[in-house]
C-alpha cells in the first residue's frame, strides 16, 4: 500500500504518463460512466444558458439570441411565480415541522417493543409504502379521501353534516394537511431505519448501568437513547433544511388539482405546468430561468448545510 502511494505522486511528466498507462483499465472502466454523466448531467448544464436567451426552435440552444436578465425581471412581476415560491417554502417547512419528528418517535417506540418478531413485523409493515411510486399511492389515497371514499363514510357516521361538506381534496384549507399526512404515511417508516441503526450502535453497558441505578424504561429512553442518537438527529435535521427547495414534485403533481393550485403549486410543478401543461409551449427561456433560480438557492443551502455538518465532524455527503 505504501509503495502504491508513493508511485501515485509522480514527479515528472513521464512518471505521470507511466502512471496513467499503468492504470489504463481503470480509465477504461470510467469511460461509460463518464459518458453518462457528461451527456445526461452536464449537457443540461450547458442548456442553462437559455435562462438568458430568447429560445427559438429553429436556432436551438446555442443559436438563440441573448436577452440578458429579462426572464429574471419577468419573475418579479409574475404573480403565479411568487405563489409557487412561497408555497415551496411553506410546504417544505410544514413537512419539517410535522414530518421530521415522526420517524424519530416511531424509532424510539419500535425499539422498545417487547417481542423481537413483532418489532420486525411492524418495522417491515411501516416501511413498505416507501417502495411504491406516488402514482400508486395517489391512487390509494385519492380513493380513500375522495367523494365516495371510506374516510368520508367514516366521517358521515360521526357527523353527517361534515360529510355533506366533504371537500378534502379540493379545499384550500385542508389540502396542505392532506399532503403532509400522506407523506408521513408513505415515508415515516423508511425514515426510522437510520435512527434504529443509530440506536443499535449505543453501548449496551449504559443501559445496564442505568438499570443498576434504578432507572425505569422511560428514564432510559430519555437519558440514554435520545442523547445517544442526538448527533444523528441534528445532522438529519440540518440536511433536511438544506433540501428545503425540494418540496415534493412527485407527490404534489399526482395529487393536486386546479382548485388547490394557490396553496399547492410549488416551483417544480409551476415550471412543468407552464411549459408542458397546456400543450408544449415554445417559451423555454422563462421556465429555464425559474429552474435556475430554484437550483441556485438549493445548491447554496445544501452546501451550507453540508459545511456545517462537516464542521460538526460528520461526513456531509450523506
Amino acid at each position, binding site marked *: 500500500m505504501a509503495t502504491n502511494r508513493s508511485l501515485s505522486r509522480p514527479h515528472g511528466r513521464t512518471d505521470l504518463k507511466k502512471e496513467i498507462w499503468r492504470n489504463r483499465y481503470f480509465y477504461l472502466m470510467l469511460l461509460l460512466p463518464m459518458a453518462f454523466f457528461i451527456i*445526461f448531467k452536464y449537457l*443540461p448544464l450547458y442548456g442553462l444558458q437559455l435562462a438568458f436567451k430568447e429560445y427559438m426552435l429553429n436556432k436551438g440552444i446555442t443559436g438563440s439570441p441573448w436577452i440578458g436578465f429579462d426572464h429574471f425581471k419577468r419573475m418579479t412581476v409574475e404573480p403565479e411565480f411568487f405563489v409557487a415560491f412561497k408555497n415551496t417554502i411553506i410546504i417544505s417547512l410544514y413537512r419539517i415541522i410535522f414530518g421530521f419528528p415522526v420517524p424519530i418517535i416511531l424509532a424510539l417506540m419500535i425499539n422498545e417493543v417487547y417481542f423481537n418478531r413483532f418489532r420486525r413485523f411492524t418495522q417491515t*409493515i411501516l416501511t413498505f409504502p416507501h*417502495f411504491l411510486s406516488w402514482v400508486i399511492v395517489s391512487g390509494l389515497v385519492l380513493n380513500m379521501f375522495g367523494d365516495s371514499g371510506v374516510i368520508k363514510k367514516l366521517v358521515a357516521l360521526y357527523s353527517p353534516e361534515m360529510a355533506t361538506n366533504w371537500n378534502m381534496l379540493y379545499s384550500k384549507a385542508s389540502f396542505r394537511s392532506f399532503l403532509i399526512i400522506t407523506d408521513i404515511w408513505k415515508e415515516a417508516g423508511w425514515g426510522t431505519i437510520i435512527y434504529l441503526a443509530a440506536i443499535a450502535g449505543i453501548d449496551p453497558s449504559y443501559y445496564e448501568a442505568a438499570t443498576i441505578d434504578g432507572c425505569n424504561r422511560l428514564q432510559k429512553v430519555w437519558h440514554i437513547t435520545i442523547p445517544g442518537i442526538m448527533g444523528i438527529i441534528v445532522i438529519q435535521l440540518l440536511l433536511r433544511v438544506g433540501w428545503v427547495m425540494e418540496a415534493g414534485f412527485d407527490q404534489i403533481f399526482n395529487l393536486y388539482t386546479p382548485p388547490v393550485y394557490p396553496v399547492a403549486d410549488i416551483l417544480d410543478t409551476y415550471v412543468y405546468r407552464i411549459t408542458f401543461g397546456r400543450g408544449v409551449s415554445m417559451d423555454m427561456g422563462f421556465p*429555464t430561468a425559474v*429552474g435556475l433560480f430554484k437550483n441556485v438557492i438549493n*445548491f447554496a443551502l445544501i452546501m451550507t448545510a453540508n459545511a456545517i455538518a462537516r464542521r460538526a465532524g460528520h461526513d456531509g455527503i450523506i
Partner: protein
Amino acid sequence: MADATHKSSLDIKVPKRNRIRRFSIGDAILIIIMSLLSLSVILPFYNAVLVSMVPQTVYVRSPLLLWPKEVIWDNYRFIFDFRLIWYGIGNSVFITVAGTLYSMLLTVLCAYALTKDIPGRRFVRFLIVFTMYFSGGIIPYFLIINGLGLTNSLWSMILPTGINVFYMLIVSNFFTGIPPSLEESAKIDGAGDFTILIRIILPLSLPILATFALYYAVDKWNEWWHGLLFIRKVEKQPLQLILRQIIQDAQFLSQQLLPGQEKPDVYGDSIKMAAVVVTMFPIMMLYPFLQRYFLSGLTLGAVKE
C-alpha cells in the same frame, strides 16, 4: 461487512438489552399503539383490494364497506382486456430488466474505478458528486434528451437514469473495505484489472449488489416521470403512466377502448383500484421475501458509527 469482521475479533458477547425483563403494562400499551399504526398502513391496501372486488354500484351505495358481500372479478377482467395495460406491462418489464442491467453495469464500473488512487480521481469524483447537488433543471434536460432523438423511445426511460450517485458511492465505499491483499495476490498470479473486478470483487460483494440491483429495479418499475416528458405514444408508455391516466383522467379509458369493446357499467373507482392493485402487485409479492434487502440499503453505508 468488512467492518463487522473487523469488530468480531474484539467482540465480547454482551446481551443487547436486559432480556430478563417482565412484560409490563407499558409493553402492552406499546403493542396496541404499534398494532394500530401497522393497521393504518395496511388499511389503504385492504381498501383498494376491497373496492376492486365489488361492483361500482355496491361500493358507492354502501355506507361503510368492511367486507365484500359478493366478490366479482369483472374489474380485473376489464383491466386485463384493456390493451394498453399489456403494452404498459411489457414496456415496464423491459425498462426494469434492461434498465437494471445497464444501471448495475455503470454503477459497478464507476464505483470500482473510484476506489483506485489514479491520477485525476479527485477531479472525477468531484464532477460526479457535484451532479447530486446541482442540475440544469427540467427544461434543459428535456431539450437535450429530445435533441438526442430519444423522444417516443423506451430508451428515454433507461439511458438517462443510469447511475444513482448515492447508490454508487455506497457501493464504492463497500469496495474500499475489501482487503487489498486479496487483489494483490490475484495480481501476482497475473490477473488483469477487469479480471480482478469480476473474479474477486464482485463475488465478495453479492449481498450489496443484490440490494442495489433491487433498488434500481424498484426505481425503474416505478418510473413514470421520464415517460410523461418523452413518450407521446400511449403504446410506448410505462405501466405507471397508464395507471396515472386511468386515475387522473376520467375520459382516458373510454377514449382508449378498442372499437367494439364495451364500456362497462362497473366503470369508476373499482376499475381504478383494480389497476392500482395490478401495478403494485410485483412489489407487494417480492417485498415479504426480499425484506432483508429492501431494508438494508440505507444502513450499508450511511451510518458509519
